[in-house]
């Protein structure tokens, strides 16, 4: 018996096992009801992708849209050359990333595993993107070790075009669901841009403790 719950019931003047209250809560949890969804999240898919890109570019993020997975390796190589970055990426065991054909990028080193302080560039994969705010949903796990999203100076995130949805509520649906709701990994990171701070004199600085650069590659 949770003593806090009994104290709260006493304060509210209600009894344990009050059927109506239990029903109310059960319904609220089981209905998976949605609250108001902003109209900007209820557009056709092409508009959602355009908005997704626009919102990310508004927060100092670069976005590339490639037609096919075979184009990803060359896009990463291009990005590294343009930004004068080392030709190395670290990634997890994500199936989509595993399918990338690196054979044409012979000078690119692919490392795998969680990030250490020494890793400069990470490649992760978002299971969903919400276009209402240009937000990438990344689930931690062996596929995407969570440290890859925060330790390296540059984070590249891969997302399939079909995983871009309008609102957060639709993004949650992309996780595997059980009876009560989505089966949560240890962390779901909602990422909207490179890390930033305005803690000193309200001056916005891109690149605080997390990545200083964020590049998003949309596939398909």
């Amino acid at each position: 018996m949770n003593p806090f719950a009994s104290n709260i019931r006493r304060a509210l003047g209600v009894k344990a096992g009050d059927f109506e209250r239990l029903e109310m809560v059960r319904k609220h949890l089981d209905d998976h009801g949605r609250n108001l969804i902003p109209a900007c999240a209820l557009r056709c898919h092409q508009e959602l992708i355009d908005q997704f890109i626009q919102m990310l570019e508004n927060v100092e993020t670069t976005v590339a849209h490639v037609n096919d997975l075979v184009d990803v390796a060359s896009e990463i190589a291009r990005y590294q050359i343009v930004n004068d970055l080392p030709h190395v990426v670290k990634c997890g065991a994500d199936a989509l990333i595993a399918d990338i054909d690196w054979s044409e990028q012979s000078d690119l080193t692919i490392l795998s595993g969680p990030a250490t302080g020494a890793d400069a560039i990470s490649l992760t994969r978002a299971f969903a993107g919400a276009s209402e705010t240009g937000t990438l949903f990344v689930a931690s796990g062996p596929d995407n070790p969570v440290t890859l999203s925060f330790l390296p100076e540059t984070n590249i995130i891969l997302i399939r075009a079909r995983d871009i949805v309008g609102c957060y509520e639709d993004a949650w649906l992309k996780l595997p669901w059980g009876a009560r709701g989505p089966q949560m990994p240890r962390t779901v990171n909602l990422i909207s841009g490179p890390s930033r701070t305005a803690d000193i004199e309200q001056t916005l600085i891109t690149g605080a403790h997390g990545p200083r650069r964020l590049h998003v590659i949309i596939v398909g």
Partner: protein
Amino acid sequence: MKSTARSFKENARQALKNQRLQKSLKVMGRGFVEKRAKARAALPEFDALCQQGQAIKTHTLEHLDLYLEVYEKQLAASGGHLHLAQTAQQACQQILQICRNSNARLVTKGKSMVAEEIGLNEHLEEAGLRVVETDLGEYIIQLRKEPPSHIVAPAVHVGADQVEADFRRVHQNLPPNRNLSDPAALVFEARNMLRHEFINADIGITGANFLVAQTGTSVIVTNEGNGDLTQSLAPVHIVIASIDKLVPTLNDASTLIRVLARSATGQSITTYTTFSTGPRRPQDLDGPQQYHVVLLDNGRTEQLAGDFSDALRCIRCGACMNHCPVYQSIGGHAYGWVYPGPIGAVLNPSFLGLEETADLPNASTLCGRCEEVCPMGIKLPDLMRKWREKHHAAGGPPAMVRTSLTAWAFVAKRPWLYQLLTGMMMPLLAKFAGRKHHFRWLPLASGWTTSRDLPAPSGKTFMSLLKKHQREGRL
């Protein structure tokens, strides 16, 4: 944190005289206000979302016992540990015990107002632990041994040159010729310093913006990524959160997230919003091995039953203080405890008692801007008025104030008498003021006239002018 709310008046006087602070408050200026207005204008559904957010919070608070039980079950199912702390002292002890159980020496911390509320750092440091704040603003004020002056931007009162001086004082091996003259260089320096701490930490402590009952999840919102490094690199992650952070579902949290950052910094969403559920999974390659949630009551259950339960809806966005003319003039430290601004004036008396904090609900013109911008629709002016009533009923205000108020109330409740007296007084005051139309000094009103002149009445009362206009058929 030790309260200095009792000396609010003196704190405020000092704040007004403090030119450095006044400069920083000016830098802060209307930045937050304009950014919020812009964010609100960019989302047509903003007001409607706020109303839904309020309904979610009210529904949750009315069923808090049940959602707490669901949360507890889900947290346990995901492998997390729940610790219930009735008081600040208990919460500190529980957290210290978790640290001791893993022989911890270094603790990294994300930003948490509840941790400030319970005085966590002092408690852990007294026990011999090294505690490092990792949010840049919190890190700066920790170096300065100051409390936060704003709940979203804790170091808003500090200038860049002061930060430079602090870094040069504290950071060893910093070459004297290193350029630290602008915020970007300072951020880079702090980033490099804190990297080692993240990686070497034994314990990572964060707060929570929300706790989701449906999934047993804690949520933090940050821009810097420090909270994520804190909770992902240390082998033990402790969340310190109060019971009012509970929301039923991920969808409910999503609604509140839509209004939180827009109200706080004017961002459509913070750079990082992180949902954490349990410790690392067996096959995971990183993340903490233990996940503890210390759930704090500290008088909130009592508040739930009382006159101030609406304040429990607060999501700590800081909009009320950003828009408050009093906060804008004196900053956060003058309020003397963890929560500044209008929400502090309502919360702090509950935590510390009225005797300590009676000046806070009085430090308001009740202009209503805080209520207007509160995304959770908390009627802050009404709640401040309620504290004033309680203070009055308890015999708090000095005899002079009480007698004057009683006399004024006697007159104000009798319109004929009020009009008679004001009708006599106004021309008299106008005559005394003369051609300057203001008073440099008035008996019993030196509190006003020492720092500014009191405008004099024009000679006629509103009621007499109204009657005159009505007679002349102008209305």
